[in-house]
């Protein structure tokens, strides 16, 4: 502490400076009128709100510079409400600042710490209470109570068990099976390789019996992206190349990072980009991650054609699609 060095003295609170309204009755009356005007503007705001609510149709659009075309009904309601509230506040504060006392008041603080005698008695009381219960000496009680309390916390956990089913192997499975037809989404039509031009992309889903009631939780695992390149543009291992058909390669559309739809395809570079966290996958190299936080390529679906030339899955996905989870066993 800088106790030895003499500090500069506290000159005390500066003298109070009176406002005009404190000394001049005319100024005080003027301030009163100003406050009343502010409250009056607020009332006009409420009128604007009521008029907009009742008389302005909600399909009327008006042009306002800078903002462009605006819905007059919504704008009237909003501005009316804003004006009515804002000017109540302005009036109240102007009132406080011009007419209410502005002399600073000094109140004393007291240290929170109680006098030593009280503290001593308090601490003693806690101690004697604790020792009277025997908590310190009777360790059997202490331990068994601890165990009972700990165990009782399990019951809410157990009772919450029915929040959902156990995952089992579900996270690893999709609807895709050997021979499942690829159908367009939307449309639910089977497709031939000729439907897809070189450079084109299409989202497909597995064909199911009741496409009207396809579950979102199935789409969340089944969505597949078809991309057609020239076969010579691929830079794939033989087994991966065999999973393509006629330049068409199929990847899970569900990002291997956090499950977003990997929807951005850049034709020039043949990169797939996830808009959520910018993981970037190289289509020509089996969706290898070339940028971003994803640690795994998108799973590739093995596709071929049936006798009539429609695209089908030759095999289900060989690994779980979507984000990682503890039980995931690959590599």
């Amino acid at each position, binding site marked *: *502490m*800088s106790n030895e060095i*003499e500090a*500069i003295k*506290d*000159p005390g*609170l*500066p003298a109070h400076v009176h406002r005009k309204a404190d000394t001049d009755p005319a100024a005080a009356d003027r301030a009163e009128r100003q406050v009343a005007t502010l409250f009056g503007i607020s009332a006009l705001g409420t009128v604007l709100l009521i008029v907009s*609510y009742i008389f302005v149709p909600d399909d009327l659009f008006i042009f306002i510079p800078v*903002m462009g075309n605006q819905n007059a*009904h*919504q*704008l009237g*309601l*909003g501005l009316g*409400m804003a004006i009515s*509230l*804002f000017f*109540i*506040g*302005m*009036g*109240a*504060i102007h009132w*406080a*600042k011009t007419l209410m006392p502005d002399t600073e*008041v*000094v*109140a004393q*603080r007291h240290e929170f710490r109680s006098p030593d005698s009280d503290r001593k008695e308090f601490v003693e009381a806690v101690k004697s209470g604790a020792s009277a219960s025997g908590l310190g000496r009777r360790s059997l009680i202490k331990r068994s109570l601890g165990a009972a309390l700990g165990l009782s916390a399990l019951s809410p956990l157990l009772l919450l068990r029915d*929040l*959902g*089913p156990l*995952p089992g192997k579900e*996270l690893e499975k999709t609807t895709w099976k050997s021979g499942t037809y690829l159908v367009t989404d939307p449309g639910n039509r089977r497709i031939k390789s000729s439907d897809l031009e070189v450079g084109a992309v299409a989202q497909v889903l597995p064909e199911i019996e009741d496409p009207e009631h396809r579950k*979102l*939780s199935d789409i*969340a*695992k089944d969505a597949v992206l078809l991309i057609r390149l020239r076969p010579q543009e691929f830079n794939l291992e033989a087994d991966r190349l065999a999973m393509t058909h006629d330049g068409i390669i199929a990847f899970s559309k*569900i990002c291997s*990072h*956090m*499950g977003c*739809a990997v929807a*951005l395809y850049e034709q020039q570079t043949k990169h797939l980009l996830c*808009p*959520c*966290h*910018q993981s970037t996958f190289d289509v020509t190299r089996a969706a290898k991650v070339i940028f*971003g*936080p*994803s*640690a795994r390529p998108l799973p590739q679906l093995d596709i071929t054609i049936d006798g009539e030339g429609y695209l089908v899955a030759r095999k289900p996905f060989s690994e779980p699609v979507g*984000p*990682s*989870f*503890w*039980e995931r*066993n690959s*590599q």
Partner: protein
Amino acid sequence: MTVETQLGNVANYVDERTGAAAWMKKNLQKVFPDHWSFLLGEVALYSFVILLLSGTFLTFWFDPSQREVIYEGSYEPLEGIKMSAAYASTLHISFEVRGGLLMRQIHHWAALIFMAAIVAHLMRVFFTGAFRKPREGNWIIGIGLLTLGIVEGFLGYSLPDDLLSGTGIRIAEAIIQALPVVGSYLAYFAFGGAFPGEAFIPRIYIVHVLLLPGAFLALITAHLMMVWYQKHTQYPGPGRTEKNVVGYPLMPTYMAKAGGFFFIVFGVTAFLAAVASINPIWLYGPYTPGQISAGSQPDWYMGWLDGLVRMAPPIETHAFGHTISWNILIPGLIIPGILFTGMALYPFIESWITGDKREHHLLDRPRNAPNRTALGVMSLTFVMVTLINGGNDIIATHFDLSINQIMWGTRFGVLILPPLAFIITKRLCLSLQRADRELVLHGRETGTLLRLPHGEFVEVHEPISPEKAYLLTSHEQAPPLELPAVDGRGVKRAGALRNKLRARMSIANAEQITKVSADDLKEIEHH
């Protein structure tokens, strides 16, 4: 009867039934210090009230259900499209309920302002040292409110079940699923089965409208009662000491100002809601896991987390048939966990370093606590860099930059810039202390040049007022803790390493430009 007599009668009536006269008398005259920065917490409180009011309005029409419906409302582009009842009812509020869109906008704007005010208030409390004893408990409640606010905001904008918010829920699910051992179980419990299922929206709805608002009410009440009971801190200055509080009495001045300020906050929120459209969910379409829109962005208070996740290196561990996603766990849980725990414990860490166990009611000027200020700016820099990366796609398209370069820039930036910010801020604080010293010693530059008889030009300095001189020198300059490695009897003290660390931090913390003393001034006068 005049208003005064009427109110007097009310006071009588209340006292005869409660005996509250003594308590009320004292508290109606309670003194509140005045400063613009004390309004930040008030903005947060008032936004919360606005959220309760506008949120209640929305519940009258919102249908928290993921049941599939076919849209038949007045918004033509979505006519006949399959969607959840939650999304359809949000469209109904936006297009058919009169004033519904305005209320949705007020609710969302109030949430953004709520979080911004909390963060600004937190910065005020941190940089002025208001969290010191006896207010550590209130600081922790504040951190709890900040955390709950982030969760509550996220749940709130997830409720409409549009394509953007559904993507946010998908990411939240991936974070739960990434937890080692229990992840996939917790995800299945939270979602009632496979993502997205039909259970999640109804569940987060009740959390959003009942559970968390209840927790907010309890914590805010405790927060305010502590402020009331412990009395507000005040800025240093002439006449202000650790033992007093200088300001305006609650009734009428402070009441009128604070009450009026509520209406101003509400009015500004309504104005923003009227003129600036946010979250136009009808443009996004209903959620389906197979689709997404480019430029997906969370609300601002989630942006830094998103930015962290984006910049994470692509690391996963595959071993013994299991997978651990470090690329999700580190940015999504571990770093935020360290940040928030560190924040909550900071008052105790600082008092351990300074060894200061006294009560503090006078605030610090940030320059007079260089280490703390530098630490705060360092943390803010960290969050800003990650926030920038959270918007890297938007920045890339708006400024025609490469997204990869922004990502690499922020990946390095997040490691280099925060320490740099620490060093620069600390130097700046010490420079400002030096400037204060100059000001007290040599006075204010008047801008008047004087030519001396021998031709030299000098600038005339004018002494500053005694009030200002006191303000610039009233702070305490504590020397570092003395923590010798051996005790009085020459025996090595226990915990040598910990003591060494503490001593080093204490020395760094005590680095100051010596303030001007009364003796220095006297000496100057003699010249």
